């Protein structure tokens, strides 16, 4: 067949069309290859990326554990905070809704501007806070009117609250916002608005109180809106802490010393349970919780009475005459003096080249041990301290809990100082002198104690020789009680000491006879102390020793008192320190008396209904 021109044309067409078809085939193979590469080779990688896109892990905040007193009263609780939010997406017109809300809940122009700004800035489905800390009535009214308030969403948040305010500030502490340096393993700390314990028990036991974060895996869309929950792992609330503190006693104590710079510790002498632990002045932990203003904080910092310090465990003071029981017991136990041996006090005591003085300028005359304790005769104790020596005093002080920490669950506990020959050599490189022993004999010089240690000391003196350890967390049911060690001493020796402490309050020769309890069934004993803050100079002694009232506040003596009650079968020990308060008998003893009286009264009130029942 002869090729017509048209046939030639067709032949060319067929050739070239085949070429194009071939090209299509190559390109299509390229597509298939690419699909294989993405969907078979790369599928795991891309599945991961797709999940990363769609799945968002959200933390569920656990409820912080409560802190309760021994009777279940809340000391640190979680308060529901009533809030009202608006969800712009659900409100047809934000301004109209706010206008309608204004009738129930007044909104200032400034608030309104803030809300409208936030509405503009945020994604439309995210709530904008309209008002917070509402009272229940307002909150309820908003709830009732919800149908007329499109977009309004009532919401409840949780904030930490300290209902007793400054009464337990130093024990409970406070929570506050997380610092960068706090951030560690726990992802909770990175949540906006999360708070952790920053002081007191809130800090020391933060991990127990915090609980465990839960989480929820949610599917989100490209805008971040949650579409559905994929899985959920509920959070575990923090532990509730039951304290040994008795809120009533704590409250009474705190209010009793509210105007002083003081520390008071009350303890059960048999169990070591701390019933009250007060340090004044204090602060309101709620201020810190909500974010304290710099101005307010500066005032707290610059206060000479140091409201931020927990004086009960952080304050170290010379014990003064409250130390004399230790010296006396050490002497009796060592047999260097008989309880009836009399020492003559003419207010002066020569030791080496120097002269030590008794607080009583006229002197006590001839005094036995009980009389020396009752009258707090310094000369007597210079004498027996010299006889027994510092190392035996040191040993006795250690047995009664001085110079050490007890690691109760409150931060900042200090050691105090229970000096010895070895200590002085090691720290100052100087040999121990006889004068040093004399000073320690009256609780001055190197010896330093904390109010908590004084209270432990008193408990151990009066409880029959149990080396109780203070504690502030109530033992849980079933928890095995630690049996305290027994302190070795002769019973008759201790009887002398206790007799002396009884005489301080209840014998006319006692320095605090004025503070004795007059009610039936109420009694207490104790020992006063006045710790010099500043050495009395020779010139002052020659001319005239100024009275405390005449000195500037910081130079006045610390007023101390350790006590116990009742006299028969003591149950409570108390230690009181009023910083620069003056005399222990006049300033500190009345506080102890009032606190113990309050406790006795409370006890009889509690037991009376029971008695009626029994009858």
């Amino acid at each position: 067949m002869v090729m017509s021109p048209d046939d030639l044309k067709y032949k060319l067409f067929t050739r070239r069309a085949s070429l194009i078809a071939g090209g299509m085939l190559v390109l299509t193979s390229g597509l298939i290859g690419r699909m294989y590469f993405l969907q078979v080779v790369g599928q795991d990688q891309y599945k991961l990326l797709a999940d990363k896109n769609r799945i968002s892990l959200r933390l569920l905040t656990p409820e912080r554990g409560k802190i309760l007193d021994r009777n279940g009263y809340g000391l640190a609780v979680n308060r529901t905070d009533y809030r009202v939010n608006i969800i712009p997406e659900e409100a047809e017109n934000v301004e109209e809704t706010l206008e309608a809300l204004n009738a129930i809940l007044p909104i200032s122009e400034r608030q309104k501007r803030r809300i409208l700004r936030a509405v503009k800035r945020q994604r439309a489905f995210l709530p904008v806070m309209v008002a917070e800390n509402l009272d229940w009535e307002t909150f309820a009214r908003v709830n009732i009117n919800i149908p007329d308030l499109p977009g309004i969403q009532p919401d409840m948040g949780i904030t930490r609250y300290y209902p007793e305010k400054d009464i337990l500030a130093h024990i409970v502490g406070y929570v506050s916002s997380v610092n960068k340096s706090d951030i560690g393993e726990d992802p909770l700390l990175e949540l906006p608005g999360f708070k952790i314990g920053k002081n007191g028990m809130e800090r020391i036991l933060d991990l127990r109180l915090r609980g465990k974060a839960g989480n929820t895996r949610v599917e989100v869309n490209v805008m971040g809106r949650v579409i559905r929950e994929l899985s959920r792992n509920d959070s575990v609330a923090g532990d509730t802490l039951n304290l040994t503190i008795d809120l009533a006693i704590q409250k009474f104590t705190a209010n009793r010393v509210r105007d002083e710079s003081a520390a008071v510790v009350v303890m059960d002498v048999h169990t070591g349970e701390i019933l009250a632990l007060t340090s004044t002045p204090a602060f309101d932990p709620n201020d810190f919780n909500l974010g304290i203003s710099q101005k307010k904080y500066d005032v707290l910092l610059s206060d000479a009475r140091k409201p931020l310090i927990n004086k009960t465990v952080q304050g170290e003071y010379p014990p003064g005459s409250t130390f004399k029981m230790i010296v006396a017991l050490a002497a009796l136990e060592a047999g260097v003096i008989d309880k009836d041996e009399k020492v003559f006090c003419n207010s002066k005591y020569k030791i080496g080249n120097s002269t030590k003085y008794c607080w009583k300028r006229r002197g006590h005359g001839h005094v036995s041990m009980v009389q020396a304790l009752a009258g707090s005769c310094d000369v007597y104790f210079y004498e027996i301290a010299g006889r027994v020596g510092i190392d035996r005093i040191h040993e006795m002080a250690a047995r009664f809990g001085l110079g050490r920490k007890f690691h109760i669950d409150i931060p900042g506990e200090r050691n105090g100082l229970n000096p010895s020959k070895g200590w002085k050599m090691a720290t100052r490189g100087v040999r121990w002198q006889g004068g040093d022993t004399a000073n320690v004999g009256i609780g001055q010089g190197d010896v330093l104690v904390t109010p908590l240690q004084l209270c432990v000391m008193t408990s151990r003196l009066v409880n029959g020789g149990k080396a109780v350890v203070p504690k502030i967390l109530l033992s849980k049911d079933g928890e095995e009680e630690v049996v305290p060690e027994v302190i070795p001493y002769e019973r008759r020796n201790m009887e002398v000491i206790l007799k002396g402490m009884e005489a301080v309050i209840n014998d006319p020769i006692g320095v605090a006879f004025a503070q004795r309890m007059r009610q039936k069934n109420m009694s207490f004993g104790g020992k006063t102390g006045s710790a010099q803050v500043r050495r009395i100079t020779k010139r002052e002694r020659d001319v005239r020793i100024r009275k405390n009232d005449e000195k500037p506040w910081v130079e006045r003596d610390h007023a101390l008192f350790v006590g116990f009650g009742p006299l028969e079968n003591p149950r409570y020990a108390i230690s009181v320190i009023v910083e620069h308060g003056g005399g222990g008998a006049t300033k500190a003893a009345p506080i102890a008396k009032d606190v113990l009286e309050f406790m006795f009264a409370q006890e009889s009130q509690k037991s009376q209904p029971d008695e009626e029942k029994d009858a």
Partner: protein
Amino acid sequence: MATRLQGRRRTKSLLQKLSELNLMIIVVVIMIAAVGFALLYSVAGGAVDPWAKKQVIRFVIGMVGMVVIALVDIRVWMFLAYPMYFISLFMLIIVSVMGQTGMGATRWINLGFMNFQPSELMRISLILALARYYHCLAKEETGQYSRLIMPVLLIAAPVVLVLLQPDLGTSLLIIAGGAAVLFCGGVRGWIFVVGFMATLPAAFGAWKFMKPYQQNRVLTFLNPERDPLGAGYHSIQAKIAVGSGGVYGKGFIQGSQSQLNFLPEKHTDFIFTVLAEEFGLMGGLGLLGLYIILLAYALIASLSVRSQFGRLLSLGIAVTFFLYMFINMAMNLGMVPVVGVPLPLVSYGGSAMLTLLVGIGFVLCAALHRDTSISRGGAFA
């Protein structure tokens, strides 16, 4: 009918033609469109609104048009080739003038029931016009350079107008479709080699001509991670969607990327990613298979048609269809920069769907009239 003047022996009745319509191709077209309906239903979160329903309606209208076009005598279309070209060109001019007054790009004319893009119509019209032009040339003439002026002008006029819109993707597609007709029409091979070489400086010129967003697209294509939240976002999210679909897919309406809106333009240009995510490699290959059947039919038809007009028409439409498919899929798979090209018969949108159905109509028409010989003089000469 006037068309029966020639070759009475081969003239068929309307009923005969209807019965001879290739049913398989119509079924394949419906299947492809059905994939589109299903995907549009899925991306709406399992709802016929706002896309699937409208798409079905347009498809039905388009199908009627397609069958009507197929049944009309091919010589009528040859006769109408130049008029249709000029009507399309006129509409492009109108759009371009309106676009200038309207500040920015205007690509469509509002026809009331839908917005129509003249540039889409132009693709078919150009192929018709070029096919007619080469049909009328003798074999010797096809290789003459003087005979190149007319077709180049036919191509250049709409390309310039579309570039002015500016729509780089469409203008390149128009050039490619036209070039395919020229190539098979008989233009000397080396001209295409030179022409292809010339694209390099042309590409440089185009770069200068491009709007910043277009330049961005090219740059981002070359390195999507350079701007993962901005211009590269499309590419990256599309790849994640396709890749995470794996072999069997995540299931209908289960694609997290599409259902949670991580995919942009998922109902139009990026609808293939939805298919790939929800039905996996199998879904993608299935759709590709349907396309291949359709293309193979058009190519085989073009080889078996007696008239050069019918051949060039079928081939030109096959190439156009292929280019739509290839560029769209390649873009979805992150192989080429993001350009505004829909997935044929699947993407939501009226203009492209009508254009493609009209095109397939012409292929069916050519196949139906494969034995109709047309003299070089023209349809009614």
